[in-house]
């Protein structure tokens, strides 16, 4: 499997989103390396989740572009972006609480594949995240960690090329987190997927991401390798002040 060294998976150019007088994202630009795990960090309110929502079409950008596979996907509807191979999870899990685990999985299957194929894929992914025994249980009856795993597995139903994970470690115990991180590395190393993680847990970001982007007040203030980010003055100032 090619690791896509040097290739760009997604290019964000001068992206802007204002809510009234609040500049949630204010001219943000970055490029995601293909086949790598990247991190997007920043203090609370820095615009990370808004950026995620702009990349996935949940919010419409005021201006700027998002180039994916040579196409500007900014302005497309969420389902169109999903169907182009970009999938996501949410900061607070958005599993379907009154649908079973198996139905949650099937809901995200492509209608271009047969039902038999969709069922097989769902079974494989439930096995992948060790939820097979809970396949007939309502999503709302799962523990929070299991809901995170379900949402993660559901996002993989269509075998996306780019996976955006919004705070995958939040509220997850260490054992489950380790499990989740192993799955993420498997996707990147063995399947060549591109992954972008928004996370507040610096252990996750520094130990598992190859490239890190830092946002503050809606703009990118730094990017680089983990050790570069740890010593970046702008980043230290954004997190700890003068």
């Amino acid at each position: 499997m090619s690791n896509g060294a040097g290739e760009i998976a997604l290019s964000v150019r001068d992206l802007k989103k204002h809510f009234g007088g609040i500049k949630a994202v204010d001219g943000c630009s970055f490029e995601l390396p293909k086949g790598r795990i990247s991190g997007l960090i920043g203090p609370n309110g820095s615009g990370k989740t808004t950026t995620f929502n702009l990349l996935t079409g949940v919010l419409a950008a005021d201006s700027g572009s998002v180039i994916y596979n040579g196409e500007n996907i900014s302005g497309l509807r969420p389902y169109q972006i999903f169907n182009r191979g970009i999938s996501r999870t949410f900061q607070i899990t958005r599993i379907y609480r009154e649908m079973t685990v198996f139905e949650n999985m099937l809901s995200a299957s492509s209608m271009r594949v047969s039902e038999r194929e969709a069922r097989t894929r769902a079974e494989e992914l439930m096995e992948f995240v060790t939820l097979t025994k809970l396949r007939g249980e309502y999503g709302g009856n799962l523990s929070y960690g299991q809901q995170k795993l379900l949402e993660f597995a559901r996002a993989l139903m269509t075998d996306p090329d780019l996976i955006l994970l919004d705070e995958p470690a939040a509220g997850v115990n260490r054992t489950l987190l380790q499990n989740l991180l192993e799955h993420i590395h498997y996707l990147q190393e063995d399947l060549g997927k591109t992954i972008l993680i928004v996370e507040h847990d610096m252990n996750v970001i520094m130990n598992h991401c190859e490239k890190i982007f830092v946002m503050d007040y809606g703009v990118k203030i730094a990017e680089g390798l983990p050790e570069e980010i740890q010593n970046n003055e702008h980043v230290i100032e954004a997190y700890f002040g003068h």
Partner: protein
Amino acid sequence: MSNWEHLRNFVVLAAAVVALLFVPPIFSIYIRSFFMFMMLYVVLALSWNIISGYTGYVSFGHVVFYGIGSYATGILMVKAGWHWIPTLFAGAAVSGVFAAFLGYAVLRLKGPYFAIAMLGAAEGVRVIATVWESLTGGGDGIGFPNVENSWETYHAMLILTIITIIVAYWVGHSRFGIRLNAIREDEIAAQSLGVNTTFYKISALVLSAIFPAVGGGIQSYKVLYIEPDSEFFILVTIYMKLFAMFGGKGTVIGPILGAVILYSVQEITWIKFPTAHLIAFGLFIIFVARFMPRGLMGFAVDRGWARKGMVH
């Protein structure tokens, strides 16, 4: 769900069809009429359930589709001289197209706003039917030529019920239905996971509009007279909703059970308490809402008598 379970369900449906085909001849016209209207409410409750039970967009104006079907049959039979059967197809087509346009406009609204918009649509069409005298006969309505048609209409309603159950069964056991459920659960998540929610919601509304229109057409030919207040009567929508919720909305069997049981209860209470049957009916519904908020099927699932979910 395994092939064996699908087969079992179709055997049950086939047994019910055989019973409804061969039992009524030994009963009176009243009993035959009772079964016909019970089947009509099975159709209405299942149809309401497709848009409101699965997607969570609770319609308070579904009678509009029933009324459109009634008037399509009335106008085309009496004023254009059509045979009654093609008028049912025409009513379904008009209702489906109307639902597509209506859905495009009102399915952007959520919760009570959608409910009120649907109520407004039904009232609007009722007013049009009242004032457009040259076409609809206005408040005087349309009278049909008097014919004996109880067997024709009975069999037509039976066929419509079978088709509606098959379509509802398909919705309830397909990825189409799962996607409708996903919209009910979390529309933003559904969009982000590949569901073109506008397309699915409009499709569900169109599907849920076709069968009530055909049912309305058969009913109008059965009673041989239509007028706006009865064909667009809000109580018809309330019955659809109550029957589906009593049985268990978002399921296939729930609306069928709800319509069969509650329509029977209503008929019995009407015979026993002709002036107070609505009060008795209302008390019964309050009891059910208090102790079985997810309907009979929810009650059964909570006790392990039925499986969770619609696809297994």
